[in-house]
């Protein structure tokens, strides 16, 4: 393959526009918010960037640490449930016929065609006290159960929203597996479960790990789902950040909270990179 240095002109032509876009609409705004996190509000609309760490000190208040912990807990549970539900789905898609594969993948992607807000409202219609689920349960003489406006509803909503993020990388990892290895395992007398445990999972592990990460990160920063489905106890960190920017009109503190969330994300990505590298080394030996 040609080195990009041998064709600087064409490279700049192709890469220039997206780089400029990235700079103007992502990196610079992000840098501004980052700068805000070291400032303090000096009036209704003015922020002085003073280099203070006071906002970060304030994020260490137990109440905010508690909210971070709760958000991580929500995201972790969501990711775990997505794995439990998503793994069999990914397996089924992998071993389906060509036509079945296309249809199943379509079914996984289909929700993306509808706006998240609309899907969340649909979930609310399902779960509410006089919603479809409770009405059906009522015919069986059960309920009504409190399904909406609690942590259960938030977890359910997060799993529902984030499931495709796990299924798709999982499927691509499983699909790349050498099927002859599975046949060999079955031929040599291992059962299906043992084959999955000892052959499929270890081989697909990089895909599983990146799927977990891709699910965990958006779940950690969820805003809409806890806001609409949650109850008095379901506040996640994104909800607090939103209120700092709007109602409290304290942009510096909101910026500091946002960047703590971003650092957490970086840590997760770095951790995953480290794991991947270690595996690579181990594989090379």
């Amino acid at each position, binding site marked *: 393959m040609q080195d990009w240095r041998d064709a600087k002109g064409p490279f700049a032509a192709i890469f220039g526009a997206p780089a400029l876009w990235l700079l103007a609409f992502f990196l610079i705004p992000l840098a501004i918010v980052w700068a805000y996190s070291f400032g303090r509000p000096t009036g209704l609309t003015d922020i002085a960037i003073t280099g203070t760490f006071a906002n970060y000190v304030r994020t260490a208040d137990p109440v905010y640490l508690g909210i971070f912990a709760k958000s991580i807990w929500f995201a972790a549970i969501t990711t775990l449930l997505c794995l439990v539900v998503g793994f069999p789905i990914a397996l089924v898609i992998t071993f389906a016929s060509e036509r079945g594969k296309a249809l199943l993948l379509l079914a996984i992607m289909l929700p993306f065609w509808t706006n998240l807000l609309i899907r969340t409202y649909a979930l609310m219609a399902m779960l509410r006290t006089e919603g479809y689920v409770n009405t059906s349960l009522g015919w069986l003489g059960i309920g009504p159960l409190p399904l909406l406006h609690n942590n259960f509803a938030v977890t359910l909503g997060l799993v529902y929203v984030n499931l495709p993020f796990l299924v798709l990388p999982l499927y691509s990892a499983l699909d790349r597996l050498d099927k002859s290895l599975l046949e060999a395992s079955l031929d040599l007398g291992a059962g299906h479960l043992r084959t999955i445990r000892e052959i499929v999972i270890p081989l697909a592990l990089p895909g599983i790990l990146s799927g977990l990460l891709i699910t965990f990160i958006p779940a950690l920063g969820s805003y809409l789902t806890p806001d609409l489905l949650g109850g008095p106890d379901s506040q996640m960190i994104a909800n607090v950040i939103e209120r700092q920017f709007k109602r409290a*009109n304290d942009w510096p503190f909101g910026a500091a909270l946002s960047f703590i969330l971003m650092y957490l994300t970086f840590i997760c990505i770095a951790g995953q990179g480290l794991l991947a590298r270690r595996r690579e080394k181990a594989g090379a030996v």
Partner: protein
Amino acid sequence: MASDFTQPGVIAGSRRGFLAGIGAAAVGISLTGLAGCGARGKSINFYNWDTYIGATTLKDFKKATGIGVKMSLFANNDELFAKLRGGNQGYDVIVPTNDFVERMIDADMLLPLDRAKIPNFKNIAPGFQNVAFDPGRRYSMPYTWLVLGLGYRKSKIQGVPDSWKWVFDSDRYKGRIGLLAEAGDLCRLVLKYMGDDMNSKDPAALSRVQAMLTKQKPNVAVFHDDNGQDLLLSGDIDIVIEYNGDIAQVMREDKDLDFVVPGEGSQVSSDCLCIPKGAPNPALATEFINYLLDAQAGAEITRTIRYPTPNAAAAALMGPDYRDNPVIFPPKAILDKCEYAKYNGEAMSRLYEDVITRVRAA
């Protein structure tokens, strides 16, 4: 006109209803301006709440004056404020609530009104002609007023819940209670219930608020973003803090609902017409504001939105089903105990928010 209000419950026409949910998804600070909505020809940009204008008002105004009105919508005052704090992107007329009028005057974000060009001010009821949040009405014209109270389902609530006790200090309706998520409003109502000054700046009083709400939290089903009327209508909760206009709208769909302003008194608000600094067409904006205060135009708006109007001439044109409606116009004895929220400075806005964040994390 009542037949215009047969929308499904989820999108029950309400200034504080469905869009509040949508607003949850929208980012308050937009980087895009109103490019393309320029001031060519005679037209103005009107930034308003959802379903908060008469069915034909904008068309009538265009017919009468030749001025086109482009209306865009905001979901709450915070969004309005966040959008304007970085500079006006081209809005000519905005509709902030009284405490935000005060806040925006403080932040020097509003233009003084040219009162000589607003003769229809004479239509305004005397009680609204001079107000504490804008002495002499230099910056704002009253558009509507509203009062917070308790909306409830009659078949599920014993008698008339005419005290805040039932939502702040009692487990009788455990799991059936909806409180406002708006931190300032909620803190002020608890202060009112406890007999404190509603606009108190005393940190000790606010820590009592925090203690009471934390104790009450297990009984609360939901903190709602001004969509309490939808939750009440759909049966998710049986008693909720909401604005009278919102409950009045859903009461037409469900006869089992009612509204009361608790005896301790409550918070009244007034949405006002203002011209933000940097408005492209202040002269046309003034003409539009004057038109909205006209008796006929005011009646047309009121027929659609069903909120209490401060426009006495417009109210006189309304039927008794509106003028004598106890939900839209609660008894005077109770209204006398109600107060406007005062803008208490940025530190207080943060303190309110902090109290509610702590309650919800507790």
